């Protein structure tokens, strides 16, 4: 394998799509305003919402999961993941009424490390949230038993989906499982500061 050479902004050239690519890890998100670059993430049962402003081409994706069996706690966490992505797009000049979304991921477990419903819960949350906020979902590729590698080009809205072979799917799943574990041990709440 050739060594990965990272540019100053953390991107690297990916020969699979012939473009500069920014990698997003589970629990993270990224918004770019670069017409030539893509945002990429590796998905197992998690969901990525790819959102962009259709006029300015500013956009990006998040990579999230609903952390637990407590439904309302999970929904607050999911809503947080969606809001930080949308706020950042709006902060870079995006307009809410011009946003469109594509959603991916939510594979069922290959290794049996989680119950069948985990992926579909994540998918249902993303669909419901976007519908509530009036953001049209113009494409979706969800479920199945393979993990996915997503390349999202916010400037055009184009997405390249690669289905992962079993070995890579398991690796994606393991990465998400580690992320789920860190969520499990941390309280789902932010800090409070009262000004005196």
């Amino acid at each position, binding site marked *: 394998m050739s060594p990965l050479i990272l540019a100053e902004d953390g991107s690297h050239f990916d020969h699979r799509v012939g473009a500069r690519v920014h990698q997003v890890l589970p629990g993270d998100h990224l918004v770019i305003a670069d017409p030539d670059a893509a945002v990429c993430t590796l998905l197992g049962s998690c969901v990525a919402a790819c959102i962009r402003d259709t006029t300015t081409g500013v956009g990006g994706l998040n990579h999230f999961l609903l952390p637990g069996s407590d439904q*309302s706690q999970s*929904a*607050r*966490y999911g*809503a*947080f993941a*969606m*809001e*930080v992505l*949308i*706020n950042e797009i*709006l*902060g870079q000049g995006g307009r*809410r009424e011009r946003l469109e979304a594509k959603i991916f991921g939510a594979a069922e477990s290959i290794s049996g490390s989680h119950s069948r419903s985990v992926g579909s819960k994540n998918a249902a949350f993303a669909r419901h*949230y976007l519908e*509530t*906020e009036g953001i049209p979902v113009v494409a979706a590729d969800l479920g199945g038993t393979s993990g996915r590698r997503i390349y999202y080009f916010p400037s055009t809205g184009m997405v390249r989906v690669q289905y992962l072979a079993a070995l890579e799917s398991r690796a994606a799943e393991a990465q998400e499982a580690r992320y789920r574990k860190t969520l499990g041990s941390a*309280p*789902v*709440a*932010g*800090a*409070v*500061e*009262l*000004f005196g």
Partner: protein
Amino acid sequence: MSLVLAVDDTRALRSMLADCLKKGGHQVVLAADGVEALDKLRQHKPDMVITDLNMPRMNGLDFIEAARREPEGRALPMLLLTTETAQSLKDRARAVKATGWLNKPFDPGQILSLVDQLS
């Protein structure tokens, strides 16, 4: 029981906040941005405000600043509930006389104990 004005441009967040406050026995008035919130403040005279920061038309900081000039808002507890973490924004919140700052995602227990403590 308190009357809480909850302000957020995200529908999902408004409904989660309303659920949480109602379960705690409080009454809730909702607004989607600072302009609507100022109207609701004058109209309903709430006991407390919980507001998002990033919103269209009028953001949470500008809303608090404007609300402090209203008789209904002069001494009202007003909390920001936001995804933002920048110190410069917290400094601005302090300058416009926000009561406090909470980061999302929120914990219902924490929200309810703050409402009990402040309102």
